[in-house]
């Protein structure tokens, strides 16, 4: 199924299926392939790297796959020794374990015969490697750093904030789309105008407000300030404007209260737009960094993004944990996209109108 689809996709030609390649076909495929690499390259790199050991990450030149050097136990040595493939001066190639390295000379031993020692120039040896997934990158932080706590904080913030956003924005949009009142245009423009104010500018005033309300170090401090988004209001308003006016008037004739019209008629019909806004809101909230960093200072209220930041210390960064946990934080958003994405394109198209 998937392969036939893929082959039919790749079989597309300018003049129809199965025709010879036109130069525009080549251009199109090159362009699309470039897009795929640009989009998926970094993600793939991230996932691959997240399985590398700390030392493999620092290796130069970097390798694509997570390799690890083979280590062997040699009798008489307290620790495991790394294994190398060594070209000896007589031209023979042997696998030797390195005991220690002094300057440009490595002191090596044959694991099969520990009494025999060699002194080898370091450019004459090559590490023996095997593919190894460093799953401890995932396991350790999940246990040691209360990552599940951060995860549940993030989930709470994302879900509650998205629900509040959908509710508040749809109410504002309903007012701006359905009612006629003086100053309606001004109100709409004012809402959209706030799009031009960057978060960084209002960071301090909002922080002061949140502090005055005693919300610092509470998840509500992250949820509430951003609940009303101009983008959401605008998106929903534009969609609601396309709903036939007759439907709302029919509901009025049917003795529906304004709340019922909003909740039982307009909201269900705005579902496609609500889904789009939900996806946006989930992404915004999940990835939000600057604001939570400002208002959340206690570890127990950290969201994932702030927790990830904690791996990045002043002096050293624990890349292996950082990368692995970044992958973990990506998974929920990716899943949301997979399941809600169809709502973006498909709407409740038929409106019951001719």
């Amino acid at each position, binding site marked *: 199924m998937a392969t036939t689809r893929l082959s039919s996709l790749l079989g597309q030609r300018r003049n129809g299926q199965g025709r010879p390649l036109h130069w525009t076909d080549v251009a199109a495929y090159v362009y699309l392939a470039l897009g795929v690499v640009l989009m998926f390259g970094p993600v793939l790199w991230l996932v691959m790297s997240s399985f590398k050991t700390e030392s493999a990450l620092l290796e130069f030149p970097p390798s694509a796959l997570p390799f690890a050097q083979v280590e062997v136990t040699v009798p008489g040595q307290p620790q495991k020794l790394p294994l190398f493939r060594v070209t000896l001066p007589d031209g023979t190639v042997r696998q030797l374990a390195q005991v220690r390295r002094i300057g440009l000379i490595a002191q090596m031993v044959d694991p099969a015969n520990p009494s025999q020692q060699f002194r080898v120039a370091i450019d004459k040896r090559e590490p023996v490697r095997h593919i190894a997934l460093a799953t401890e990158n995932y396991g350790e932080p999940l246990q040691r750093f209360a990552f599940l706590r951060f995860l549940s904080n993030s989930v709470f913030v994302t879900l509650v904030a998205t629900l509040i956003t959908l509710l508040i924005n749809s109410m504002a949009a309903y007012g701006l789309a359905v009612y006629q009142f003086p100053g309606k245009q001004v109100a709409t423009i004012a809402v959209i105008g706030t799009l031009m104010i960057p978060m960084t500018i209002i960071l301090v005033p909002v922080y002061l407000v949140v502090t005055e309300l005693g919300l610092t170090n509470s998840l509500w401090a992250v949820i509430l300030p951003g609940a009303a988004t101009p983008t959401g209001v605008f998106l929903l308003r534009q969609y609601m404007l396309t709903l036939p006016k007759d*439907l709302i008037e029919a509901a009025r004739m049917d*003795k529906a209260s304004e709340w019922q019209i909003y909740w039982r008629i307009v909201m269900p019909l705005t579902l496609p737009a609500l889904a789009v806004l939900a996806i946006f809101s989930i992404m915004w909230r999940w990835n939000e960094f600057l604001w939570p960093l400002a208002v959340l200072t206690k570890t127990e209220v950290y969201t994932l993004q702030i927790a990830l930041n904690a791996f990045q210390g002043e002096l050293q960064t624990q890349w292996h944990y950082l990368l692995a946990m970044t992958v973990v934080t990506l998974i929920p958003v990716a899943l949301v996209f997979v399941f809600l994405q169809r709502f973006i394109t498909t709407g409740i198209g038929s409106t019951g109108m001719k």
Partner: protein
Amino acid sequence: MAELTLTGARKSFGTINVLHGIDLAVKDGEFIVFVGPSGCGKSTLLRVIAGLENVTSGEVHIDGERVTHLPASERGLAMVFQSYALYPHMSVAKNMAFALENMGLKPAEIEARVARAAAMLRLTDYLDRKPKALSGGQRQRVAIGRAIVRDPKIFLFDEPLSNLDAELRVATRKELAALHAKLGGTMIYVTHDQVEAMTLADRIVVLNAGRIEQVGTPLELYNRPSNAFVAGFIGSPRMNFLPAVVMSDDGTLRLSVGEREVALPRAASGLVAGANVTLGIRPEHIDVAPDNGMLAATVDLVEQLGGETFIYASAPGLPQITLREDGQSQFYRGDAIAIRFAVDHLHIFDATTGAALARP
């Protein structure tokens, strides 16, 4: 079941006046049709009655109660929209039940009412379907059902048949008439189709440019239109209007029509010699004369419908004249014919104001 009274109802949108003082009394149980060309204000008038638009000035009374500023939801009226306006996300049953739920009825009562309306409109098998899974005619019936279940004081219909094809329109028209006979409610119906108006109405209100031109039963409007507009609007094909000048009116009305002089034996009706008038005569009241007739004309076009024939003929100095003949015709394009008017059915209108000067 209710009476409706409009007194001096005016409506303007900004500087545009749409209704110029409408006075109308609708009796209980009456089927009233608002008819007029598009843009005449008939839909606005209906929306004013519904409460979807507020009057700029004037009063609306339902059953003697002043409802002028009452919102639509509190007037107790039901409306069928031109677009049907079915709630697309609700099943047929839910569509019909929505208003009843809003009225706070008990579920059992709602179910019973929906079932009764569905049976009446042959929708019982479709109750679980969504509107998009219905045909145009079925959607139309759901829209009507949504009004019926409410048991409203007045039913309002805004061009409900205009989205149906011709055949279905005739069938639904008959159903509506039967429905009115059965329910007996007060119904107000807006249409631009004079056939719907003629067939459905107890009384027709002819509107033009925001004013009522005439109110009367279909045959009153057909037989005795009070002005040229009504005369032209009611009846299909429309009435022939021929410019004429009065020569004398003393027992025999002598008129100069086109290049001919026509003498019509009829009682004097006080027309002044030299007055410019418009002669109105319906196609069915003109026929081909065996002798010289009143006017000589040339056949331009013949429309053979089998049961009847329309002949379009031109006479010198006159607009094209339409004749209706029973049965099938022997005339062809280019034939010279003599035509005559049925004098008893002649209308004479003032050439400038259009007011009827002499009616049959």
